[in-house]
């Protein structure tokens, strides 16, 4: 982002926050727009999480869906009828009111579930990170891809894995219904009035944005970027490799977990089909489209792709094939369309919609850099050194 004067930046930030917070008051509370907007905000949270791992620390994670799954299952386990026989069919209730307080199964307050989801995904993020510590670049992508797939497969087959009187997941059937969020001092969270959902998602985005900015401009943020730039130099300068990388995986995963718990409740189902590889790519595409490492870019990328996916393709453009005399469903081509968009982006604006200041300057330089920061086996550099 170009460096604006401080007071302009503050004014702009306040304006954006005010616009975002007041937006639901001007649209229909149960309409399609606010539904799309709420989903978009949940995706922003995930994309900002992935941005910490891929954008800041440079660890290409292709299995981010695993954290969505773990967050959502945390919601399913602790906020639904899933453990229906617990406590002799009476149910366990922790700080819940309303209809959920009467139902069998475990029902905890949404805020408690969010904390549990954060803990679960942070641990999972670090566990998945561990085997990749010795790897670089493409190899990290392969290992994380495999972990994403493992979690996806377990979600599908989990209905056949049982123990302690319960199944692991409900497989493709899904855990449904899931408790609605229930917070004090708020309008009721229903399917007909989506405003409170939107505000919860909006608050999550604000918190995650705050954390992202603070982390980026900190000792830890610098260490992540240093590792991304040159691992050998970073460890030689005193950056502990294992700890720093695991913190990136853990923090990034935690955001995925928060968003996953929210989506579990919002979509009212925790279904194995949600947790497949394509979703990891979907989130990664948001990060790349917006600009790797650029916080505002990722926000814009996530909102854009989310609206293209949930509104533009299924609703606005869906009759295009028919009009030109073809017979297929445009939504089946969603990923083709995303791919096409990414290719166009890479040609026209490889640094993303709103590039990170660093990358923008770097990509602008190109070939002449080679001579200055060459590698051992770089002929240009070798020629300089007699």
């Amino acid at each position, binding site marked *: 982002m170009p460096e604006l004067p401080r007071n302009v930046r503050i004014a702009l930030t306040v304006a954006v926050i005010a616009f975002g917070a007041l937006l639901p008051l001007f649209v229909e509370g149960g309409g399609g727009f606010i539904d799309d907007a709420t989903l978009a905000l949940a995706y922003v949270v995930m994309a900002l999480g992935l941005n910490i791992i891929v954008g800041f620390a440079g660890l290409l994670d292709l299995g981010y869906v695993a954290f969505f799954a773990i967050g959502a299952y945390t919601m399913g386990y602790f906020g639904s009828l899933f453990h229906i026989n617990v406590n002799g069919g009476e149910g366990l209730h922790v700080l819940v009111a309303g209809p959920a307080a009467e139902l069998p199964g475990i029902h905890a307050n949404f805020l408690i579930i969010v904390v549990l989801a954060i803990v679960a995904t942070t641990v999972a993020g670090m566990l998945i990170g561990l085997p990749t510590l010795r790897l670089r670049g493409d190899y990290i992508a392969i290992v994380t891809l495999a972990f994403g797939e493992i979690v996806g497969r377990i979600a599908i087959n989990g209905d056949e894995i049982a123990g302690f009187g319960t199944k692991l997941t409900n497989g493709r059937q899904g855990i449904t219904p899931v408790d609605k969020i229930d917070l004090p001092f708020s309008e009721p969270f229903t399917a007909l009035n989506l405003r409170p959902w939107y505000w919860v998602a909006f608050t999550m985005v604000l918190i995650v944005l705050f954390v992202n900015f603070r982390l980026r401009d*900190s000792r830890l943020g610098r260490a992540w970027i240093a590792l991304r*730039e*040159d691992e050998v130099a970073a460890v*030689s*300068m005193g950056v502990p490799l294992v700890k720093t990388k695991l913190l990136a995986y853990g923090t990034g995963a935690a955001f995925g977990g928060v968003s996953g718990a929210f989506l579990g409740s919002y979509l009212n189902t925790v279904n194995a089909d949600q947790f497949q590889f394509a979703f990891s790519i979907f989130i990664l595409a948001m990060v790349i489209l917006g600009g790797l490492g650029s916080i505002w870019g990722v926000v814009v990328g996530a909102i854009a792709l989310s609206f293209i996916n949930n509104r533009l393709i299924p609703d606005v453009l869906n009759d295009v094939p028919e009009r030109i005399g073809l017979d297929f469903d445009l939504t089946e081509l969603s990923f083709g369309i995303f791919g096409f968009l990414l290719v166009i982006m890479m040609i026209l604006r490889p640094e993303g919609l709103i590039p990170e200041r660093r990358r923008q300057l*770097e990509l602008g*330089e190109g070939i002449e850099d080679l001579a200055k*920061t060459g590698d051992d086996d770089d002929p240009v550099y070798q020629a300089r050194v007699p």
Partner: protein
Amino acid sequence: MSPEQENILEAHGVTKQFGGLTAVNDVSFAIPQGSIVSLIGPNGAGKTTFFNILTGLYKPTLGRVAFSGKNITAGRPDKIMALGVARTFQNIRLFGTMTAIENVMVGQHARMKAGLFGSIFRPPWVRGEEQRVRAKAAETLEYVGLRSGVHDQLATNLSYGDQRRVEIARALASEPRLLLLDEPTAGMNAQESESLTRFMQKLRDDFGLSILLIEHDMRVVMGVSEHVTVLDHGEKISEGEPQAVRSDPQVVEAYLGKQEAERQRAEQEGAV
């Protein structure tokens, strides 16, 4: 040099094998406190490998390394750095997309305490730490002669000479007691090398540093070092005062070939 002067770094019988290749073979070596010593040898002699062992990037196959009496053999690079061993790289390894000042701030990572929660909530002590580190980075950059106008430039956009300066500043900012410089004059002309030589002596005097230098430029080596160790094919073939090492036939042979060594020997004998 008093005889009981302490060695800041000692290496005993360090050997490093990569598969069947022995890159460093049974090298013992010491750096007296406060001295400038050089490690020289032809290309491929194992100098940089030896450096990487000292800084923990490689684990030696055999042997032991001690830094101010503490065993650091195969220690983690970041921990060795925290103890006070800082280095630069032969081919400049700055963090390209970070500014000059951020690069130097990363060098102080081991001297900072802010963790995940400190970074997020930024309590007063973290703010203070951040300010201190930034001020020190600026000061160190001034010290190595980087104009304040370019402190906020990305490292990749700096000139070659300025990149070298930033790299030295990054190492210095960590408050090291031993500085390892891997071919700092690579790509420099005679004049620049000359001023770097003076700069190294100034560093030693200003900070009480000990310096280990890998160098190809003999003028620099002879001008600055108190002690020279010569490696060839991974083995230590000679060591001692610069003048003595220069006339050691084994060293001449390693650098210039056997014929030249014999010709020089014949010349000397003829003169006698």
